[in-house]
């Protein structure tokens, strides 16, 4: 091989130009924000710096090489993909080594058929990224010639700057996504807090209307707030996607089931409720429990509450039937005034779940029955 001029031997004017070109390319790479930007800077910068007849920018796409961009005297392979094992860019990336080829038709690593339609007779192909190359830059000449050390070093310098640029783009994208996610979560949180405040406002105003004294208000309001907080807990458990009917019912009736087992029975298939529906359901069942504990089956020994539901799979859409049945309690008297508790049961539950409901103060024991088609609000899970 003939001695190549060292960078120091090159006339001052051309080495200043080379330096300026390199600095300019690196500066533009540092402000690139997309992969397309990077490719555009590299194809012209690398060609100016090496004086090559053409430059191609190749990206690794899993096990293939994707020729994404080029700047050349004639067409190369822009837009095409080749298996990594069948092209020199793949070889450079897999071996983490720069390929210097003075005569491509004498080198077995080159797929000659792919090159024959092009002007290329010699090339340098350098990988981008030290440990795990994600790309490669190829410089091509239309004559058989030995590439100079200066040309090879220039290409490698650009490759190093390109690797940094790719990493920057990856970081910026990752940061942007994190910021977007954070903003979304902040908006969701704001929405949920506003919803909770609206729920509390509703519970407070309705409890106030139906409470005969301040003490009565405080007691009933506190109990309902607890129930609301349990509903939110169950929703948070599943990231506010839905809540389970059985878990909601158990949480609603937990304050009324002391150590006496068997007094409350809850049974039915797995049903998921949307957040707003879940809150209404828990509060409604809580009211049924409150009434049962004050006046009904849970106010004395031997009383039982049966809460069960089933889905009629044959119907279209499928129908959910939910039944509350009290037995073994004292003789039932219908309440004189409709207060918030009954409203929550008779109006709130069907409003939230859909369908129709009936609250019946039968003398043997209070019953409540709700029938609704399954929907996006109430679904089998």
């Amino acid at each position, binding site marked *: 091989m003939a001695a190549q001029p060292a960078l120091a031997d090159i006339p001052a004017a051309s080495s200043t130009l080379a330096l300026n070109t390199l600095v300019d390319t690196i500066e533009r790479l540092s402000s690139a924000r997309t992969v397309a930007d990077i490719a555009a800077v590299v194809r012209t910068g690398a060609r100016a710096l090496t004086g090559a007849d053409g430059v191609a920018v190749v990206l690794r796409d899993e096990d293939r090489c994707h020729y994404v961009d080029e700047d050349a005297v004639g067409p190369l392979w822009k837009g095409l993909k080749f298996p990594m094992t069948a092209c020199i860019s793949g070889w450079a990336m897999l071996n983490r080594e720069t390929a210097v080829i003075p005569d491509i038709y004498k080198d077995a690593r080159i797929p000659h058929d792919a090159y024959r339609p092009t002007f290329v007779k010699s090339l340098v192909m350098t990988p981008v990224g030290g440990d795990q190359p994600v790309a490669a830059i190829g410089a091509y000449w239309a004559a058989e010639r030995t590439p100079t050390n200066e040309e090879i070093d220039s290409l490698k310098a650009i490759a190093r700057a390109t690797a940094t640029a790719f990493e920057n783009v990856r970081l910026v994208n990752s940061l942007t996504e994190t910021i977007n996610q954070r903003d979304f979560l902040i*908006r969701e949180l704001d929405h949920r807090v506003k919803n909770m405040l*609206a729920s509390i406002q509703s519970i407070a105003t309705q409890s106030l209307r139906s409470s005969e004294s301040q003490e009565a208000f405080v007691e009933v309001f506190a109990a309902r707030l607890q129930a609301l907080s349990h509903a939110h807990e169950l929703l948070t458990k599943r990231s506010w996607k839905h809540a389970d009917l059985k878990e909601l019912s158990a949480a609603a009736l937990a304050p009324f089931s002391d150590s006496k087992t068997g007094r409350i029975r809850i049974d039915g298939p797995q049903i998921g409720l949307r957040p707003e529906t879940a809150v*209404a359901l828990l509060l409604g069942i809580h009211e049924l429990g409150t009434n049962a504990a004050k006046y009904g089956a849970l106010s004395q020994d031997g009383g039982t509450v049966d809460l069960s539901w089933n889905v009629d799979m044959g119907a279209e859409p499928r129908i959910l039937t939910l039944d509350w049945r009290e037995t073994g309690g004292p003789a039932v008297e219908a309440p004189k005034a409709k207060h918030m508790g009954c409203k929550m049961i008779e*109006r709130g539950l069907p409003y939230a779940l859909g369908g129709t409901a009936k609250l019946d103060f039968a003398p043997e024991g209070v019953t409540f029955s709700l029938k609704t088609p399954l929907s996006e609000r109430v679904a089998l899970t």
Partner: protein
Amino acid sequence: MKPRILLVEDEALVAMMMEDVLEDLGWEVAASFADVRPTLEWLEKCDTLDGAVLDINLGAEMVFPVAEALRKRGTPFTFLTGYTAPPKAVEFETPVLTKPVDVDELERVLERFRQAA
């Protein structure tokens, strides 16, 4: 005769409270719904309606088809929302109340409905 109002709100708790509040403010709640479809069906058969309160986000859907129907029949309405009002709501050039609702503000909005009738 009391003026009639329509309520569209997907949260049962808020709906029940709004019904009480609207009645306190002298309105008759003609109907309340949690979804768009039953609301539109009801509107088709409704003769007199003097106003409406519409929650913007109804879970899986937005209330805008109802807003459109009300605009066509010339019934005044206000939006109610727990989010910031989306651009589509602003297009209607109607009041937008935020949850939890400020009853005084609601009263002022409803008063304007009464006067417009």
